[in-house]
């Protein structure tokens, strides 16, 4: 046992070292590519130095945290709604060919609608409250989730379905214990995708219809011709998103996929 612990300890420290290395390499590489872009663009792409400065300025502004919080809250609301509806619909479509036949064209058509259209139409139909934009986002997000989930459900083992039928597993049991676990890799992709999309969409929504939020901030710096701030603000928030991912998604992922190894 003790040797085991030593081994795992070494693995951990090795992991940390490698993580540090990776960070360094990634940063240096990014630096090089970015500087190259700055060079090629005659300085139009703001240099990393300028971005760092902007980052410093923005990070020390209190209001940016309020904005971040507003945006984060919106992302969570839409994300939660879109994933739960999308997963439910995706599973139903994957399990039942009738449901699939009916909803597939709707999903495809839903994907074809540009995001602006969702947002504007939602505002015109539902009014100018904040919720309109969020509902539009949910609508725009659902098809993406559905597609990924449907793929996962389709790849399940028919043998286990038959087993469930023979042993007459209850519907819920079957959905959770048999389908759910098989689909879990897809669910992880679906949630991560949805999360990232939610963020991209909120930027648009806030730029288009909300005076507050980090998306509005990004857009504002854009209008004021401050690409350095624009990038800094986006970066700042991406870091927050990555943290959220690391805190929430990574452990869930680990827990769900333990049986594989």
């Amino acid at each position, binding site marked *: 046992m003790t040797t085991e612990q030593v081994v795992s300890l070494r693995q951990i420290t090795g992991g940390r070292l*490698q*993580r540090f*290395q*990776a*960070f360094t*390499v*990634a940063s240096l590489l990014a630096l090089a590519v970015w500087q190259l*872009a700055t060079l*090629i*663009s005659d300085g*139009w*792409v703001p240099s990393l130095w300028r971005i760092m400065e902007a980052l410093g300025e923005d990070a020390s502004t209190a209001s940016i945290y309020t904005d971040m919080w507003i945006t984060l809250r919106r992302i969570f609301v839409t994300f939660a709604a879109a994933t739960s509806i999308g997963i439910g619909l995706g599973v139903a479509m994957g399990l039942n*060919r*009738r449901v699939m*036949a*009916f*909803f*597939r*064209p*709707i999903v*495809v*058509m839903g*994907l*074809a*609608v*540009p*995001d*602006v*259209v969702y947002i*504007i139409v939602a505002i015109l*139909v539902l009014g100018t409250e904040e919720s309109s934009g969020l509902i539009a986002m949910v609508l725009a997000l659902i098809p*993406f989730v559905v597609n*990924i989930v*449907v793929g996962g459900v389709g*790849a399940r083992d*028919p043998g286990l379905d038959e087993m469930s039928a023979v042993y007459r597993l209850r519907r819920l049991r079957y959905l959770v214990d048999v389908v759910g676990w098989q689909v879990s*890799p*897809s669910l992880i*992709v679906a949630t*991560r*995708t949805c999360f*990232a999309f939610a*963020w*991209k969409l909120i*930027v*648009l929504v806030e*730029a288009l219809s909300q005076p507050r939020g980090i*998306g509005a901030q*990004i*857009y504002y710096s*854009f209008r004021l011709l401050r*690409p350095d701030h*624009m*990038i800094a603000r*986006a970066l700042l*928030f*991406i870091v927050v*998103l*990555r943290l959220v991912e690391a805190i929430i998604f990574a452990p869930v992922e680990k827990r769900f*996929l333990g049986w594989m190894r």
Partner: protein
Amino acid sequence: MTRSPETTQNLGARLRASWLDLALGALGAGLPVFLWWIGSHTTTFVPPIGEVIRAIPDFVTGEDIWPDVLVTIERVAGSLAIALILGFAAAYVMHRGGLWGRVVDRYVGLMLGVPSTIAALLALYVFKRSEVGVYFVVSIITFPFVALTLLQGLRSADRRLDEMGDVYRLSTPQRLRHVAVPHLVPYTFAAVRNEYAHAWKVVVLAELFAVNSGMGARFARAFDRFRIVDAMLWLIIFMIILLGTEYLLLLPSERRVLRWRGSGMEGNR
């Protein structure tokens, strides 16, 4: 093998099933149309279906839309191809792990969050107003999502088949071709479906920023002036292209490549 009565019976059942699917599909496609119909009656900005339908003949016979349609299809397809290659490479490196796996993981994580506006602006700075910029924006925005999906596919691969590959000493190309890629097929389809649609959304912005041509730009212009009939017509073209791709390209090829999967009992259920 002779055709036994149950064969025809079965064929009949299948035909019935596919007719039913078709009918349900038509019903599904009818739902948005129905919503449109309601919208045209309850709001002032949604034009009546008839008006838009009457505008279709002129719209599609006027030859000035087709160059824009074609050039945009080309851009979307091209960028998507680039995104798939980049995404696969990234997923592969991430899956192999190690230093480079982590490095690529960092980048993919970062890129997932890059707002399209920023990508479009950077493209404008670096590539100025050029075609390359459009390809750059669309592929850079879509590839991390491809990578994410394919990575999960690689992770869920059956280790036992890898071991089989070790024992029989399959070369790397053989492994890719016979083990990794077929396993990734369902994941690839999910990625293609989503990112194809995603690319259509991004291309609108990219075209606006970089070239002011193509159907994305034209749709946006119509929508910006709230010339709703025109916007609707473009939207219908979008949808037809996406539906056409889905039903004529993706679905049949997916069925074909995944033929091995079925239990052989589909017709009986």
